[in-house]
């Protein structure tokens, strides 16, 4: 029974972590161009323009 006491918070925390990562990536515009991102992954000479 004590296993539940830390397993459940762990499960929820991991879930929340995933949610937070999703919300962050959404907010930083990573979902704005899925088609382009697919091509960018194939580039081997990507340079940082910014």
């Amino acid at each position, binding site marked *: 029974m004590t296993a539940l006491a830390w397993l459940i918070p762990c499960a929820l925390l991991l879930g929340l972590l995933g949610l937070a990562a999703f919300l962050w990536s959404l907010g930083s515009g990573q979902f704005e*161009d899925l088609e382009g991102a697919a091509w960018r*992954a194939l580039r081997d000479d990507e340079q940082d*323009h910014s």
Partner: protein
Amino acid sequence: MAQALTQTPLGSHGLADADAGDAARSVTTTLAVEGMHCGGCMRKVELALAAIPGVVSARANLSARRVIAVHRASGVNSVDLVDALQRAGFRAAELAEANADPAKAVDQVLLKRVGVAGFAAANIMLLSVSVWSGAAGDMSPSVQALFHWLSALIALPVVGYAGQPFFHSAAQALRAGRLNMDVPISLGVTLATAMSLYQTTRGSQQVYFDAAVTLLFFLLVGRFLDQHMRTRAAGAAANLLGLRGSMASVIQPDGTTLRLAAPALKPGMRVLTVAGERFAVDGRVVEGNGEVDASLITGETMPVSVGPGTPIYAGTVNLSGSLVTEATATDQNTLLAEIGRLMAAAEQARGRYVRLADQAARFYAPAVHVLGLVTFVGWLATGHGWEAALTAAIAVLIITCPCALALAVPAVQVAATSRLFAKGVLVKAPDGLERLAEIDTVVFDKTGTLTLGEPSLAADQHVSNDVLARAASFAAASRHPYARAVVRAAERAGLAVQPAANVREVAGFGLERIGPDGPERLGSATWCGAEPVRAEAAAVCYRAGQNRPVVLAFEDRLRPDAVAVVASLRQAGFQIELLSGDRTAVVEAAAAQAGIDRWMAGAAPAAKIARLDKLKADGRKVLMVGDGLNDAPALAAAHASLSPASAADISQTAADAIVQGSRLAPVLETLGVARAARRMALQNFAIAIGYNVVFVPLAMAGLVTPLLAAVAMSASSIAVTTNAIRLRSMRLELAS
């Protein structure tokens, strides 16, 4: 991969904040780019912009066909960016309002809600599955209660946050005294959550948090995809308009000219428009005489003579010489103002269209509540306590909560819209497809819709190849639409066109050069010393030395597949009409060629609306296909409307969907897909109702467990979605 991750994606605002010190001098410009289709093009676009001194960064968005450039406010402007892309082989244009796109913001918020609901659904399901499997085994009641409380802890805030779009829409409908699909959804979700909370406090097994949250998740996914598809279509339509939106040369007080984008023009500015250029802004001629092609505004293919004082409309083409106009604001007596008034009236008269899902909700919502009440009364009457009766009644409401029913339409819409998107048809109106499915009459405009809207050499005249080749080599020096038509005709005849040297363009008359056998001229008939052969036709004359002048007459040809499309529509049982603002002779000829027997010529915007009203009074559902400014009120008044991508801005905005390309065939595809979408939506309703027929009696008998509810709901949602996806690859035959 690691490198790709280190690059900060540029949101439209993110960078300005990061760069706070430099923010005042750094600006973000969004450009629409035509022809960017693959990773290679994307790279070329980014490199071309990054190479400009003063550009801080450039990031292309391949899905939106746009590029966002951050550059210094001084030294670089959008014209430099457009020019750089032009040199790299891409046509581009600045999009002024792209950064504050409200539709995109709605998209983002919906996606956030999807994410939150998805997180909650997964975690609650994890807890629920433990309870379900533990209930048969050795799970103690206290652990069950703990799991239920944990579920409640997750579900309550999530339902409150993720359910908002449904609650708002339901509240809006109820306030207006209507019922829509969101009313039973909101009711079902709220009741399921409230009852589950109550049952949790009592330590009961009847807990439906998982069903409520999973339902929200599925519905939000459907809603997001639907919204996203439409945002994408609207974005593509905005790109089209932006790319067409013209630049104008403004004459400064000191006599120099400055290139400005059309939206930056202010009343009082003097604008120089050269031959072949489109007027960017409404105005009045102050200097110069010439001819204007106003076909996009009036549907009239014959050029109009203009001189100082004549009003000019944006979208018309200057045919000869340079004209200086003074930009004016729209005043109350112009054609534009009249069109504005007619459009407002037409939109009001169209009224509110009741969507398929809302029609279904009108029958469904009362039926559900009656069933719930019957269950409650039935359980009381058979001697059970009020608590048991209420539990059974709420179980009925949860089971009937229209998961499949509410997904039935959006799933089909997404499949249909994306199929049409791939074929170059941009569906913008949310209820556009449903209205298109009901069409039984198609009304075409002539100029620019049934025809190409550009002059080409008339087919019924005999011009020798020798004359044509010489005229074309002459014409290659000019941007005049007629000169271009001559060159095109020569190229189509297989002649090699070599641009002649020493050609002089005489504003308002034509082209001239001193050739080996005397002066050669290509231009107006009187200038070449010829009598106009056809009084009512657009034509130019060619004369070499003392030879007899040759008249080259032009016509506005039908689109290549117009005849076939009209024939297919007729075969499918549509009534077809042609309404045009052009002259009788031309309209009659075009109608005969296209095989349309009902036509009307010289129709002013008001006359077109009157004809549509007449058709409506006869009970016909009319599809208007038109492009001109004069068609805009008719597009707004018709039951549904389509507009080619070459159409006037107002017409594109008024139309439900935009057809790209030079062919008319997408009209057939659109009607076919719209009808198929309606059929599939009805099939989906049948699936949803079938599910209810099986499970509602079980719920009324009190036999539904939370596990059964979760399985049944997910299964029915997946069934309707799978059915809808078939539409993407279905072979369609347009038949009545």
